[in-house]
């Protein structure tokens, strides 16, 4: 009998770059056997803007607004990483007041990032309601950012050596009020999702990643912690005075999508804990370290990594002694975490692909840079 195309068991399917659930412009080439995924290949680069190359012909201060555009839902964290890297290169440290404010803003940004993740991830899975609620709370954070530094998304909140803007009147009260409002809302999201049978069925035992695989792929952030590895750079290599704050590192057990959801929910609560401690002890003093107007770091190279909402965000800055960096290499968490996609998706169903991409919490601005 003549063979027809119907006999073929393998099917190659293109997912993205225009797929709404790939969180941007990720293209995944799926190799399918019926409904089963037997292989994936990621095609990235649709959002490549050459940020690392741009850094080579900008001065150190000029480059700070560009790093906000890497992971645009967590712009403050990106700015912190870059500023810390250049500060280490210059061998200066931000004053204590600036450090505390930095911690507050980055933790607020972590909550904002996780809220975007929760809303969009739930939307991918089919629960539309959480999106409206998470964005409602995110709006409060955006308002704080807007009042503090004048921008909502690409904030450009930090400068090399400290902060540009002094706190506005009522900042502490507003942040405290946000913490009080926010904690019951997290319970509300949990009420919507945690025990919901559809949510549990879609997420439990989907995209399992063992601790060994996580380490092998270099996966960091909530994805790593959901696999049971207690690794958080805020504890392991404290920066910006994180050693002064009390907080726990939430971990999961199975390393499936449901655990990653639970870890991120717990992280939001821990962030509120850190913010409350930090707001209570904002020291007085200057907000900017003493730096010359023209920043000319000595020849050398430095690697600084911070715990961004999505994982380890590292900056490798090489200085040749001029006013412009010789090279800035960004180690984006999303890019590294995306490697594990194939491992997680293999053997699963096509419908699970959306869940797995969502649970990795990737931002394509960061993957492509």
């Amino acid at each position, binding site marked *: 009998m003549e063979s027809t195309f119907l006999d073929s068991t393998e099917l190659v399917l293109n997912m993205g770059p225009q797929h709404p659930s790939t969180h941007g412009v990720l293209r995944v080439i799926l190799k399918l056997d019926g409904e089963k995924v037997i292989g994936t290949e990621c095609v990235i680069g649709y959002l490549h803007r050459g940020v690392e190359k741009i850094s080579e012909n900008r001065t150190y201060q000029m480059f700070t*607004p560009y790093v906000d*555009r890497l992971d645009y839902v967590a712009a403050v964290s990106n700015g912190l990483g870059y500023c810390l890297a250049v500060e280490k290169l210059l061998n200066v440290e931000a004053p204590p007041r600036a450090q505390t404010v930095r911690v507050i803003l980055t933790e607020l940004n972590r909550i904002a990032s996780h809220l975007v993740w929760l809303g969009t991830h739930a939307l991918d899975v089919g629960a539309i309601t959480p999106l409206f609620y998470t964005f409602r709370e995110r709006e409060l954070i955006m308002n704080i950012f*807007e009042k503090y530094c004048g*921008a909502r998304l690409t904030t*450009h909140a930090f400068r090399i050596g400290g902060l540009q803007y002094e706190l506005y009147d009522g900042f502490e009260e507003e942040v405290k009020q946000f913490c009080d409002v926010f904690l019951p809302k997290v319970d509300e999201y949990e*009420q919507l999702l945690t025990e919901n*049978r559809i949510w549990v069925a879609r997420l439990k035992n989907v995209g399992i990643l063992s601790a060994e695989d996580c380490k092998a792929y270099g996966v960091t952030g909530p994805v790593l912690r959901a696999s049971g590895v207690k690794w958080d750079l805020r504890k392991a290599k404290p920066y910006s005075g994180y050693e002064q704050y009390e907080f726990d590192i939430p971990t999961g057990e199975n390393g499936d999508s449901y655990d990653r959801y639970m870890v991120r929910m717990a992280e939001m609560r821990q962030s509120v804990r850190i913010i409350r401690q930090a707001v209570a002890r904002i020291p007085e003093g200057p907000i900017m370290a003493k730096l010359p107007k023209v920043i000319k770091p000595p020849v050398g190279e430095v690697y600084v990594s911070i715990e961004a909402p999505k994982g380890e965000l590292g900056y490798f800055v090489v200085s040749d002694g001029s006013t412009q960096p010789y090279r800035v290499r960004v180690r984006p968490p999303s890019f590294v975490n995306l490697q594990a996609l194939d491992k997680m998706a293999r053997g699963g169903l096509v419908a699970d692909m959306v869940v797995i991409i969502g649970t990795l919490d990737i931002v394509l601005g960061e993957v492509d840079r």
Partner: protein
Amino acid sequence: MRKFLRTVFLIDLLEGLLVTFRSQHPRNICTEQYPAQRPKVAERYRGAPRLNINPETGETLCIACNLCALACPEALIVVSSERNEQTRRKELTTFTYDTSRCMFCGLCEDACPVDALELTQDFELASYSREGAIWDRQMLEEGPKPTQYKF
């Protein structure tokens, strides 16, 4: 047993619905009806650039020092000046600001030594042409004039 009963009586779904219905109260509506209801942006908002003038004399505050142009990462500010032979001071002739490439980072504002260049609370910067996004000195001093709608 408890779990079984919760499953049978759809408790998990009803709990979620409870949250949804609690949010139906008009007090909990937080959507902004944008063109009808205009948002009040923060005082420090970085929006449309403005070149400040002295309100009494109408003269520009800009001293044509070119620091904003040097601070701009996108190099979108062009300042030109000429020397006034009588007062022996630099005077501003033209000031061009390309808002189409601006990312509103605020570095120009920080660099300005006399608070002449400022990013204001105006956020409606749309124009019908690409040329319209390049603002000259007059436009920078007067600010954008967005269409006002009546409802």
